[in-house]
């Protein structure tokens, strides 16, 4: 029972705290790749777009209770999440990486999976889910803020922080004397999808169609050019797969 349906707007939930995908400009207006992506989706559907900034924890409940129509927030398609909501087909992929403390002597993900090792993760993030399922020997330090996770590693309170490659790369560059980074892929790529209320196949079909169309028109290449030209070059230098090179 929501009154949003009346004005036909497409309400998109995202956590605007993940630059450059979902973030805010200096005036506090939503900006970023996901925002532009959502706007294009709105155009395709013929509906005006309304962005709702919702904390990460609240995204799925908001979808469940119909407060938003769709979630486009760099959210990985996960089995656990599929029990509560549906996902569109993947529109991007990402790889996890690890920020490690210089002194902890960690060279690979297996070095982390030892008893006595401490891993910082952001609550509810893909890294959190991955560590919970695969790094059972280590102790998890689950935090609400990414900045706290980085601080833990910088101060040596945690041995590693598992997050996406881009964030890890940036924070490693900022703290070169205290941290190192592991970019060796240790899992299959993670695919980001748009979250849709369970059973809303009508919307899901249309979003899937739109993603195909957006790719075929080179929409993501344009967005990369606009927001991430610098990063793309770095990724190429490091030999990483790019977010939008799905095959």
């Amino acid at each position, binding site marked *: *029972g929501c009154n949003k349906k009346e004005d036909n707007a497409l309400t998109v939930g995202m956590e605007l*705290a993940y630059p450059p995908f979902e973030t805010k400009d200096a005036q*506090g207006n939503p900006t970023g790749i996901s925002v532009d992506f959502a706007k294009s989706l709105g155009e395709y559907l013929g509906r005006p777009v309304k962005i709702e900034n919702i904390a990460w924890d609240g995204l799925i409940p908001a979808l469940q209770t119909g407060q938003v129509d769709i979630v486009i927030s760099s959210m990985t398609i996960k089995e656990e999440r599929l029990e509560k909501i549906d996902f569109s087909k993947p529109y991007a992929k990402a790889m996890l990486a690890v920020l490690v403390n210089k002194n902890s002597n960690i060279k690979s993900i297996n070095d982390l999976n030892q008893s006595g090792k401490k891993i910082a993760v952001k609550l509810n993030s893909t890294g959190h889910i991955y560590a919970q399922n695969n790094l059972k020997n280590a102790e998890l330090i689950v935090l609400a803020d990414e900045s706290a996770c980085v601080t833990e590693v910088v101060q040596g309170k945690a041995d590693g922080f598992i997050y996406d490659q881009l964030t890890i790369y940036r924070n490693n560059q900022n703290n070169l004397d205290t941290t190192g980074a592991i970019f060796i892929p240790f899992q299959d790529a993670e695919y980001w999808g748009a979250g849709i209320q369970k059973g809303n196949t009508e919307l899901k079909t249309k979003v899937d169609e739109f993603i195909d169309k957006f790719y075929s028109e080179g929409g993501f290449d344009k967005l990369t050019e606009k927001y991430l030209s610098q990063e793309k070059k770095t990724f190429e230098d490091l030999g990483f797969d790019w977010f939008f090179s799905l095959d």
Partner: protein
Amino acid sequence: MKLLSIFIRQENNKETNLQRAVNIIIACGAFIVFFFWSMKRLNLSFDFSVLLDFKYRLFTGFITTIELSTISLLVSLLIGFLSAMGSKSKILPLSYFCKTYIQFIRGTPMIMQVYLFFYIIGTAWGISSRFIAGVLILSIFEGAYISEIIRGGLDSIDATQLEAAKAVGLDSKQTMRLVIFPQLIARILPALAGQFASIIKDSSLLSIISVIELTQTIREISATNFAIFECYLFLGLLYLSLTFPLSMVTRAVERRFKYDN
């Protein structure tokens, strides 16, 4: 000897302005020195200029916090007053309804209340604005605490004052307005002031339903620039800039309303 007397309270418990100033500086200085000493040990240095980029967002968040707490303050005063009266009512279902509300809200964490109210009750009854939902949740939460403060204050009003009101011929509304209310204010103001400060601070919990107030703004910023210490120190300063004047004002009002030693 003369010098030492700056540090000793006079017999009559009064303090000179000089004493006050010197000792406030010493006390604050002690905290600041300790803090910076700790920072030195960690070789940390702060660069608050990283926050300059976000000045507009910080300002907006600050304003939202002020709006949120001001409105909630008024609404929670209303709720607190009504439920304090309700819990004293002769009509027992009403009385127990109010008591259950107070017990339940005070007994459970606000985070749970936020989730259940916003996503279940709020959605079911069509409260879609996050701001309005936030104000309601915060007011319902703080109302329970204010209710207890008011109840305590009412209990402490002397029965003879009410009898005197009867004797001079006041009706019940006049008694409330001319006798109970002014006496109540004087008694509960200190506790109420503490609760007002709590409202300002607790408003930050609404960030979990993405009311973008001050704390949420800082969290978003810290997720962008990863300058956790600068962000949170600045956050503390901003909150102090709200709570400190509040406590000064209430102390002044308190002095005006005070009538018994």
